[in-house]
């Protein structure tokens, strides 16, 4: 068993995980209070996931050379970070206003990138001017977004003390 698992690439491991989780979900449907007809398509979907997972696993064992190369870059923290930032922005424009939150979001992001880039390059010459331009751009984008969504499309904005 150990040798078998060691032979698997990331493809096979993910396939195996999907099979296990879907089998668990499939077994769980038998404890559900839903009627069998209501569970028919959900069970098909789980079967498809199981079949897909098994095929990925089998291919990984039989033809490992054909397994797609998966990225090894550790992107999960970025995925979580971007998701959190987007949720935070969504919260912010409903509570402090669309223009205010847009300017803040873009300015904070761009200033951080500009400062990081300047540190990497080892020079801060012209950084102030660059930041000023970026803030002006953030204001311009915020105004365009306000005009588009609030003025033109009349989007409803609850609890918006600032514009």
């Amino acid at each position, binding site marked *: 068993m150990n040798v078998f698992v060691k032979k698997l690439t990331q493809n096979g491991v*993910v396939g195996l995980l999907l099979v296990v989780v*879907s089998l668990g979900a499939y077994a769980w449907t038998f404890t559900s209070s*839903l*009627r069998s*007809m*209501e*569970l*028919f*398509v*959900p069970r*098909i*979907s*789980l079967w*498809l*996931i*199981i*079949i*897909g*997972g*098994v*095929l*990925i*696993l*089998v*291919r990984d064992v039989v033809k490992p050379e*054909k397994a797609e190369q*998966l*990225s090894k*870059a550790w*992107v999960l923290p*970025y*995925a979580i970070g*971007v*998701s959190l930032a*987007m*949720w935070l*922005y*969504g*919260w912010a*424009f*409903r509570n402090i206003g*669309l223009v205010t939150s*847009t300017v803040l*979001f*873009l300015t904070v*992001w*761009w200033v951080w*990138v500009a400062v990081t*880039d300047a540190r*990497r390059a080892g020079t801060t010459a012209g950084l102030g001017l660059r930041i000023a331009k*970026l803030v002006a*751009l953030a204001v311009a*984008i915020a105004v365009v*977004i306000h005009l588009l*969504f609030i003025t033109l*499309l*009349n*989007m*409803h904005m*609850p609890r918006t003390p600032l514009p």
Partner: protein
Amino acid sequence: MFEFNIEAAIGAASLVFALDTAIFVMLGIVVGITTGAIPGLAHSLPIALVLPFSFFLPIHQTMGLLIGTYQGGTYGGSITAIAFGTPGTPGAAATVADGYALTQQGKGKKALQMGLYSSVVGGLFGSFVLIFLVVPIGRIAPRFGPAELTALYFLALSLVVVFSTENPGKGILSAGIGFFLAIIGRDIITGGLRFTFGIRYMQSGFPLVPLLMGFFALPEIIKQIHGVITDPTHAGEIADEDLKLPKKAEQGLTLKEFFGSWKATGMGSVLGTFLGALPGPGATLAAYTSYSVGSQFTKDKNYGKGSLDGVAAAESANNATCGATFIPMLTFGIPGSSIAALLMAALIMEGVPVGPRVVIDHTQVVYTIFLLMLVANPFNLVFGKLLIPVFTRLTKIPAAVLWPTIAIVLVIGTYAYSNRPFDIIMCIVAGLIGYFYRWFKIPDGPLVLAFLVTPLFEASFRQAITISRGDMLFFVGSPISQILWVVTALSIFFFLRKKN
């Protein structure tokens, strides 16, 4: 059988040939070419971003905007493919070999113009086939009963899995996840709650627009922002020396050269239309198929090393899929590609129940789409020709500026759809699923198709079961369903045989 509805046609013409519609088509073309010309900003992403506007705009403006974005984006991908060998969209990848080679030989202007003209020819051909096929098929479609529709939806799902990937397991997995997401919410017959996990907002199902927006846009945003943070050179800029813009003095495409490639353009248009009408293949496969078939009969010895035939074959096929992809969608409610699925979502949000009766019940809407498809092509030609230098410079927008802006538009657009903060969370969840798809190299087509087709499939299946009182032979009772099951079995058989 073919009954031309003159009232609907006049109504559609009065909507399409109005200034407001023209403005939205133009806007769509400009947005489409612009985003198509920026590598990474593939045109399913801008269509997903403009989708919430369908909630605010009347149907002709919405469809004008979306069809313009679609057609412009399909052509726009070829600009960067020809100018510096980086396809803006996956469909333009087949154009790179000959297009970029021509640019390096100092014939970039000819290549760009051939790309534009063959795109317009392909687009027009696909649109005319759409017009001539949809109404006759649409009039037969309501005769399909629940058993035939179940077989048809099964065939569509099989085809999209068969065509979508080299790895069948990943295609099936993708369809399975799409099925699962689609059944969340109330049961269509009993009203029982399925997999809502006690969340009230989930009772109406996984929201369509947040799903599509997050699934297509967020993975690219994460990837680009990761690039900006980790790699200082990842600014989205292409150095001036790599950007070989055609010089003003450079000779353009002559009529003789354009008509000299008529075989490649014609073959690409026919192949693109055929493949575009099938659920699954999409623009990328159509362009590659046309490009490789073109190599068999062209007399140009430079094919693959800088041939106008190569550009014409790939680009005409690429754009011919635009019209053709509407054929299964407007006749049976089966989107032929991910982008068709986005357009179908827009129609659903406009209150048009896309399915077998759409041609009969919403004739004017169907005619409006026909006319918009035709009208978008000349706009594509004009804007494509005038603004090539502008579009090629767009690649210089720094990624650090572009992608956070897209992120905020994604959040606001999702919220604007129905003013529910919960939709933003669902958009993020869909984006993380999309990111997993991208990392694990799972094709997105089966998920989107399954998500949209599952409610139709389930309704037909359960209707058939009720009518037949549980007799499964009912599904193979009629000649139509027998043919459909045989075609399904054959397509799976040939697919498995080819793989082995």
